[in-house]
């Protein structure tokens, strides 16, 4: 069970309080109508499944209810950093 630092609450809390909401940094296209079916399909369905560093969107569901980003190693489950929505990660996969 992960021990997660919520950047909004500024505290470590148990994983029970959080939900993972999938891959982070999937921006909704600003002009959806300009997207081809393929582009829209990629936005909708295609996600990374890396072995190693992964940027994920999490929500402190049973806490402050705020979303934030987490960079996590999918192999070791180490959390490299958490950062707020709109911020960019400082640890990135090579």
């Amino acid at each position, binding site marked *: *069970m992960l021990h997660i630092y919520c950047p909004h609450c500024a505290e470590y809390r*148990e994983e029970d309080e959080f939900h993972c*909401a999938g891959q982070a940094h999937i921006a909704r296209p600003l002009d*959806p109508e300009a997207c081809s*079916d393929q582009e829209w399909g990629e936005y909708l369905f295609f996600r990374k499944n890396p072995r190693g560093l992964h940027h994920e969107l999490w*929500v402190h569901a049973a806490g402050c*209810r705020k*979303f934030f980003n987490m960079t996590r190693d999918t192999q*070791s489950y180490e959390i490299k950093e958490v950062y707020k929505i*709109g911020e960019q990660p400082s640890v990135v996969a090579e």
Partner: protein
Amino acid sequence: MTQQNRLTSGGRIDRSTPLTFTYNGKQYKGFKGDTLASAMLANGIDVVARSFKYSRPRGIVACGAEEPNAVLQLGATEATQVPNVRATQQELFDGLVSASTNGWPSVDTDVMGMIGKVGGNMMPPGFYYKTFMFPESLWDTYESMIRKAAGIGRAPRERDPDTYDAVNQHCDVMIVGAGPAGLAAALTAARGGARVIIADEQNEFGGSLLNSTEQLDGKPAAEWVRAVVEELSTFDDVMLLPRSTVNGYHDHNFLTIHERRTDHLADIAPVNTVRQRIHRVRAKWVVLATGAHERPLVYANNDVPGCMITGAVSAYINRYGVVPGNELVVMTTNDYGYQAALDWADAGRKVVAIVDTREAAVGDRTEAARQRGLNIISGSAVIEVQGTKRVTSVSVAGLSSSGTKVIGSVTKLKADTVATSGGWSPVIHLSCHTGSRPVWSDSVVGFLPGPTVQKQLTAGGINGQYETATALQEGLDAGQKALAEVGLAAADVVLPDVKTLKVAAPMSLFHIPHIKPTSQAPKQFVDYQTDVTAAGIEIACREGFEAIEHVKRYTAMGFGTDQGKLGNINGMAVAAKALNKSIPETGTTVFRPNYTPIAFGAVIGRNCGALFEPERYTAMHKWHVEQGAMFEDVGQWKRPWYYPQKGESMQQSLNRECMAVRNSVGILDASTLGKIDIQGKDAREFLGRVYSNAWAKLAIGKCRYGLMCGEDGMVFDDGVTACLGENHFVMTTTTGGAAHVYEWLEIYHQTEWPELEVYFNTVTDHWSTATITGPNSRKLLEELTDFDVSNDNFRYMDWKQITVAGVPARVFRISFTGELSFEINVQANYGMAVWEQLIEAGAKYGLTPYGTETMHILRAEKGFIIAGQDTDGSVHPYDLGMGWCVSNQKPFSYIGKRGMNRSDCTRANRKQLVGLKTKDPKQVIPEGSAAVLDPKGPKPLEIQGHISSSYWSETLGHSIAMGFIKGGLDKMGETVYYPMADGTVIEAEICSPIFFDPKGERQNV
């Protein structure tokens, strides 16, 4: 009954407290301090089980968690039955009742054993896969036979009377194991001021020190243990957990400990006492001081009762005062094996021989044996034992220096006990739980913990350090390191003085050769519990299983309740040899939680019965219960399903409830609908982005129905949203979808459109909702309010802030039944009072409470969808014939717009929601039925769609159904067929889903 194997003195048992226990219906005596296993050995019980596959007699081999054979059924009563108890870990208590779990009619005279003898060659590895696969239809029969024969215990048929719970813990240093290394680490960490938890699976701390005659500071080791435990218990921040197995090591230093609080006292926990407890520990640092398990050697007939491991022999003698036999032969690859012979001789019984597989070994223990005059046979091995229910003799032969071949002649020696040691395997299970791969060490002849990302330290036996002095030093070092890591100063600890014995190098040997090839020699067992032999592993390798994980699965090695603690390394060694690889090349399977089996009660804790899942009740729940309502679970909510009156069938109740609504007035508790309060200057804009229809012009005081779609264009929720003020709305969602919708709104606001000023708050529980519906609903409302609720003053799709039954209410004039309806929302605290006044005032109109089932029928008569029943994530608004609820004029590309315009969503022949009228009006098509065009056509028939909602409509006097048909909206009047499982076919005509009042006049009066 005499305890013929009990010594008159010595050991950590209390001879002044005799205890009586029952094994297989017979009474025996033991002492306080015994385990069930030590008491059985004291009484000379040789056979404790029949083996899994061959039904061979089996005896006690070990003295701890690694015991494969003495796995018993416990319990004096049906309710207190506990399967899979290792006798070696069960403390004896007075009145304990135990039984072996297999063998028919008993373990001593077993019929299956005959099959084992003659059928051995008929049961090769993969036997079950090869034999019981065909015909598939018989698998259920096979399975129950296999289970019965396999003897894996049975669950109680009555409710467990005991209570279990769980506790969360936090600490600086979690120490696993309270042997010399763990105790030294704990003492250091405690003196340094750390918050410490130390857990050990045994009833008392001390680990290996409890089993030995070693001296610390010139005194028995137990005295040092007692002093350390006494000092540790003086610290407020140190928690000592005996009888507590650390069963799982999870990510981020989260550990689960299974504490057995009363299993040593009685069958049932004392009143107001928790039987077992799970500690959920989050530790800053972890010290694993889990020690090592001794490996037996693999030789012919090595499963005959009387074959044990050397460490267990020493433990039974030194700790329990039990000598498990009379004439001992030791076979060892290392110096530690000699200790059993020394202890046996000290106990006054005969050591027949020490057979050392090494040609020459000079260490302090070998010298001690030599000085005692014990018969040491070097460069040799016990290649086979004789006997069935007890060893009677052993065959000893010379070994080649590599240990791969028998050389020279075979000598028979008379003996009843064979203790073997193939060295020790560090207990690395916990270090593997977090994904760390173990690393083979040639010098240790075993796997050591591999690199890890956990904040983990190791000390003592787990590192392959088996000398007490080294273990103590490593424990102290780990304690100091942990102190430094958590920011505390080093502690002042002086370790006791221990004599370090000289140890000669061990021999790397696992499988003792026989004069015959392995395939023809008597069975050489690798895993006792699953009856896996060396020959079986060789066959598996020959049949092409090369990866150790596959060998494991094919042979079932390590699949028992002991998870191969004793046999796995030997099995890997046999596989490595067969594959002509080294052990590190072959690799190891890894370990997963739990380390030892744990009771379901402990897993569940308090989360059972009424506490299994929270139940949500509305403010009027008590009233529904009093009326005898039947309830339906909707998410966690308990909703009235229907209200049966005396003597009514369910259908009769539904008919009565439906007719009451259509003819006069009914009342529904709609409190469970999700309600989300939305405020902010951009609230209206936000609604337009998350709903498919338009919201820009919704005036204050008005309500509007909306469809919510995903980015793929598919409908996932719906509901009515009311405009309370220019910047203030309240949204309703489906009962089951409320939490998801709430998170949906938040994720879009927080991650996509943070620039919009809008705030969401869930207010579902703040409000109680009583829906009154039917032609007389206005008259009823008028009785409880002074407000003018006439059609001129309170229009359809309006909401009003008025006073109802003396309390402030938000009343929505919206309708889910097609009748004139008012949804009366009041503060939840007033809910029951308002409800009761409505009931009282409604009596003269025959006001009838109705439940969710009637609600479903009434809405289906009107063709209204239920999100989640008539939608399944694959239908967009146009598929539902709800294009009227889509606005393509909105400037912002709302969620779902692009998705529902994908080419696949706009193609012809999509499945569309239509009404279905059966040819026989009495027939109700089962929900889920598949539609075809020609039931007599060539198979497979092409499925045209399915029924999503289907009911008997008492209002209309015929059945009604809604369902999907390919291109259905263009097929009005056409016929489709629904073939049933019984061969009959239901014929139905495609029609509009609006069966009742198609012009919608009734709700508008």
